């Protein structure tokens, strides 16, 4: 098989891929990502 740029790149494990669409985990991540984004928005509106 001819080498492609993807040969030497890290790929996610099956567990990681599973978690990406596992709804209970994603509900938790939804909350956490929103908190992080709200922090950025709050800091960016200071000036």
């Amino acid at each position: 098989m001819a080498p492609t740029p993807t040969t030497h790149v890290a790929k996610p494990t099956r567990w990681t891929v599973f978690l990406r669409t596992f709804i209970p985990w994603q509900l938790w991540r939804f909350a956490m990502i929103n908190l992080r984004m709200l922090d950025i928005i709050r800091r960016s509106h200071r000036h």
Partner: protein
Amino acid sequence: MARVLVLGAGVAGHTAAAFARKWLGREHDVTVVSPRDYYNWIPSNIWVGVGLMRPEQVTFPLRPVYDRAGITFVHGAARAIHPEGDRADATPFVMVEPAGAPGTRTRVPYDYLINATGPRLRFDRTPGLGPDGHSHSVCTEDHAVHAARAFDTSVARMRRGERQRFVVGVGHGTCTCEGAAFEYIVNLEFELRARGVRDKAEITWLTNEYELGDFGMGGMHFRTGGYVQPSSAFNASLFAERGIDWVTRAHTRAVEPGRVHYEQVDGTVGELPFDFAMLLPPFSGVGITAVDRDGADITARLFQPNEFMKVDADYAAKPYEDWRARDWPRTYQSPAYRNVFAAGIAFAPPHAISRPYATPSGAAVAPAPPRTGMPSAMIGKTVARSIVDMIHGADTPTRTASMAEMGAACVASAGANPFTGTAAAMTVFPVIPDFETYPEYGRDLDRTFGEIGLAGHWIKIILHHLFLYKARLRPGWSLIPE
């Protein structure tokens, strides 16, 4: 009475006009001049481009919204700024070419001007590039519709057993908005899987980025898995997982029917055959001229050679290594005229964020800094506040919105489905790397992160509806943050 004139009705201009109207009494006038009489929520065009949304889901007519809000709307294109008026009348004005009346001109006077005209799409910089050439675009909803039709044609061919080659990325070495093209390629790949034809497709990413994940902002670093990883690893992993090949450090030289030619920084000259290509164009300013009261051309006083407007940035020419975060503008006020401001893509960035390179033949491979989305809206709002305060007596702009002091939250769709879709949710702080404050990576790693998952897709969908609600100036719109 003061007259605030906003040129452009994109994210920056529309935000500026809406807040100026909200904060100013009705004795003052707020006018918007735009060649388009509808609003386009551009971040969702990528979904139109793969057939998941209709154009009317990402656009709405501006005039009813402005009528309700008390904003005067002029449908036309700004052609020339007369910041000193003319010999007969010292009132500053903008010469506007009304829509549907090419060659005619109308004077629109102002006391304060916000130039938020966005970019001119320079498909002309690369032979054969663009919807009038041989490749597609998702820069406008109309371009995206055409891209979706061509995408459907490719899918139909694959269903008949044919193989199809897709090339997605940028169409010139100086392009920006790599993030939008990135979203498009992963959505395209997701849709091919959803339509059951992924095995018939070869997909290649063609980019001017020196490394994947640069996005015109020098890349990012994230803490993950016990390491500080560059966004290049993040993007490469995403592409490898999805079977997407890539060509980096490339200037696109020409697009022919079914073939794109490129040259890389190391001198490699190559070509990619394609059945479908979506390649974004480089940007310039829209080409507004400036004229003094005697009729002399003073465009160079207000604009950089790339046609973007000069503001309170440090535009001194210096080596890439010498630029500093503080070179970036804070108030977006023109140094030539205190009542003229620029917002969004229309302001001239002082320098590249990503290190610029060139090919041996001299073509620049230099991703331009992004000024879209959240920073664009923040700048529009900040400029509006400063102008309102100046109308009320302040001598100088009262608010700042340096991209070196603000962060950005970005959600890059990687597949649209409420249960199986994903998106890369990212934040960066600050947008412009500040190596004096954050010596190692230029950014605060506690506030710069990225992760892929279904939650990101939910956020992307919510943002789509939230920002369109806000742009329609529905009740409570100003409570929704930029």
